[in-house]
């Protein structure tokens, strides 16, 4: 999947359009629907996870119950059979969606795993968009030598096949952790997948922002500000940022969606979230080998990912329509 923004001749939205945007958004039923779905997912994972543990079955995501039993239809059934097959989904409080090979409750892991996937997706998107905004702005406005260097750097990351770069970085960091000066990150920290995913997609944000800034800097209001004595930093903060705000917001939403998928892919390849911490991606990775006897382990987290990412994509799409119906910002996931 390529993440790519194509933007042609967009006109910057005028100020005061927030109210207009909200009205357009409100009138779009799929947008409202997706926002609700997203809200539901977040609620289920954040306050919902410990709630489920308290109310339904009192064991957390790390509780391994290989030698345990559950009661089903009056029989005592082992959570994990002698041949290693875990119990499947059923109408019971404990192991509603069944168990995994270590006897852990899939439903509980799904909820806690959702937290991690959402955190990683969101955090990496923030870092990515933040960096991309910074680089794109500086590159586009200052031009010249700075622009050359930054653009070449962006080209470099862009040209490196995304998954190869991500996997290479993640593998090397996972083996030894990160040590830059006083900054030390352990190899089993979540910061590693967050950083890797963020860095890999920076060009997808920086390039279109740069393009937008280049066309903006020739505009009259920018010239006016410069004439009034505003330095480059001032111009970037007060004049340019508000005008790329809507594009950035849309990109943020779509990149969160993209990063959740990337986290899943990296975890599936074994170089994402470290295995003791559940995430939707590594639940799939660990469940995949049991797909014939315990398909729920693979199917459930995949559906969770799909729901979340669809709603984010639809939301991003709707945001773009609402904020700037004439823009052609496309961020492909």
């Amino acid at each position: 999947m390529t993440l790519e923004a194509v933007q042609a001749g967009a006109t910057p939205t005028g100020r005061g359009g927030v109210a207009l945007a909200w009205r357009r958004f409100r009138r779009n039923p799929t947008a409202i629907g997706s926002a609700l779905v997203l809200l539901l997912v977040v609620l289920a994972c954040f306050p919902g996870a410990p709630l489920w543990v308290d109310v339904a079955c009192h064991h957390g995501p790390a509780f391994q119950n290989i030698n345990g039993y559950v009661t089903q239809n009056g029989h005592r059934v082992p959570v994990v059979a002698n041949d290693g097959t875990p119990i499947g989904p059923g109408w019971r409080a404990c192991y509603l969606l069944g168990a995994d090979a270590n006897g852990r409750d899939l439903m509980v892991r799904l909820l806690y795993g959702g937290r991690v996937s959402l955190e990683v997706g969101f955090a990496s998107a923030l870092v990515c968009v933040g960096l991309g905004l910074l680089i794109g702005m500086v590159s586009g406005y200052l031009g010249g030598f700075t622009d050359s260097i930054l653009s070449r750097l962006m080209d470099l990351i862009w040209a490196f096949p995304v998954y190869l770069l991500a996997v290479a970085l993640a593998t090397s960091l996972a083996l030894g952790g990160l040590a830059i000066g006083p900054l030390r990150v352990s190899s089993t920290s979540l910061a590693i997948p967050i950083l890797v995913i963020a860095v890999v997609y920076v060009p997808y944000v920086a390039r279109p922002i740069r393009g937008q800034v280049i066309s903006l800097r020739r505009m009259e209001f920018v010239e006016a500000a410069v004439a009034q004595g505003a330095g480059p930093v001032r111009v970037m903060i007060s004049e340019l940022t508000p005008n790329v705000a809507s594009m950035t917001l849309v990109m943020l939403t779509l990149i969160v969606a993209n990063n959740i998928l990337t986290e899943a892919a990296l975890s599936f390849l074994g170089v994402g979230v470290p295995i003791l911490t559940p995430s939707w991606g590594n639940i799939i990775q660990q469940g995949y080998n049991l797909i014939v006897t315990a398909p729920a382990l693979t199917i459930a987290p995949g559906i969770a990912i799909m729901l979340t990412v669809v709603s984010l994509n639809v939301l991003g799409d709707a945001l773009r329509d609402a904020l700037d119906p004439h823009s052609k910002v496309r961020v492909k996931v």
Partner: protein
Amino acid sequence: MRLSATAVLLAAGLMLAAGCGSSSSSAGSSSPAGSPVNGGTLLAGIPSNPDHLDPGISYAVEGWEILEATDNGLLTFKKASGGAQATILPDIATAMPSVTDGGRTYTFHVRTGVRFSPPVNRAVQPSDFKYAIERLFRVGSPGVGFYTDIVGANAYAAHKAAAISGIVADDATHTITFHLVNPDGAFLDDIAIPFAFAVPVGTPAKDISTDPRWRVGTGPYMVKSYVPNQELILVRNPNFHQWTAASPNGHLNEIDIKIGITPEQAVNETIDGQLDWYFEAVPADRWTQLRAKYPNQTYLFPRNNVTYFSMNERKYPFTKLAVRQAVNYAVSRTALLKIFGGQGTASETVLPPGFGSAYQPYNLYPYDPAKARQLIRQAGAEGAKVQIWTTNADPAPQASQYLAGVLSSIGLNVTGVKVLDDGVYWDTLLAESSDPQIAFNHFDQDYPEGEDFINTLLNGQNIVKVGNNDVSNTNDPVLNQMIDQTMRMPLGAARNAMWAKIDRLFMQRDAGWVPFLHLSEPKFVSPNLHGLVFTGSYFELLPEMWLSKH
């Protein structure tokens, strides 16, 4: 030895379900359906290239399995399954060697008329055996360690001598004599494994797996063509004629091995009738159904293997015996057996059941988590940080996560489970810089004798900085001495009894490991395939196989 990595991402690898221990049916059976029929082509599959087809370099079961069919040595293991495979018989040697000088000198007479396959074609000479062993030192073979106790070997390795003085090969009288520095009862085993197989003098000191000019052997089969990542074809060796009952001719005419078939594909193709046999185990998720639906085509072979967690005695908290014992008390071996699909024997011993009288099971650490917690508290190790290492080949990650849960529950602070790809895990484990605290481990026999396990893995005198196989850094002088003494004894019941004793003492005094399982290998084959004789070193013997329909 280690099994070569199944480099396929989703290889569900080693484990899988079913059965109650290794007493399941068809353990190491042969020809159930009548007597062998000659002829036919075996359609085989393997997930990735066999590690090497060079007897001097190959050190994984896939390579050895092929070499067993294409090459021979002075001696061979009996081609039978179960305890019988430990019997050593003469192969290219005319008889068992005469052992003199207090067990330090072995003299063999070499048979005449055994010829190498095309294009070398000539008869095997004693100098070929000497050349084979010297070559090990020149190619950086992983097997050199078995032959360093030959007089002059170390000097040769250090380039201080032109040849190994302790090997005297006389082509005129057809004899070859080995002089050892110290007596070593298992030397006969060292001569029977592929590292000592005959290699024509002049074979270059580099990997000849893809060089047909030198990739020759004396066995019933020869490599007709080998295209890495695609296929490997074995055909009958025209220069072979059976010279001893210990090395029979093969039944099959040809063996076509397709490279790159994943375990799941293999199962599907076998069901569809396009594949007769696959090198690797049946994936976990298919075993139960296959067992139920095709009982005559599924086999559960006992590998001579020990699967365990090794604890590094040089790293806190595993420096304390109490902590190591606590882990042994806290682990439920039945739970681990479930994770491994019930395929194998749960046990606390180092040596596997296939080792005959050297295997004397004991129960020093019955499951007792409360006692484990107490031991940890007494040792003052509560809250100690631990990181677990594991390979990514299933079900090792699951087993390691189970261990993580156990360690947390007895009061240790598990910081994480470090998962490395199978292709790099085993080498990384042995690297000096790695030094894990506790790691998933397994060991399969090189040859069926206690020395192979115990001397390699538990003798503190063998600890080296690089490539250290004593991963727990066990270095108990009492044990070391017992091991050295036992090595000098001749093979037999007395020697086996000593190994069993050392095994138990190790877990009692040192407890550097958490041994939990001796694995079995689940296989699924076509209904036409018979004659599956399974040994620990070579797995199914290719020359014994036959097809009832071809």
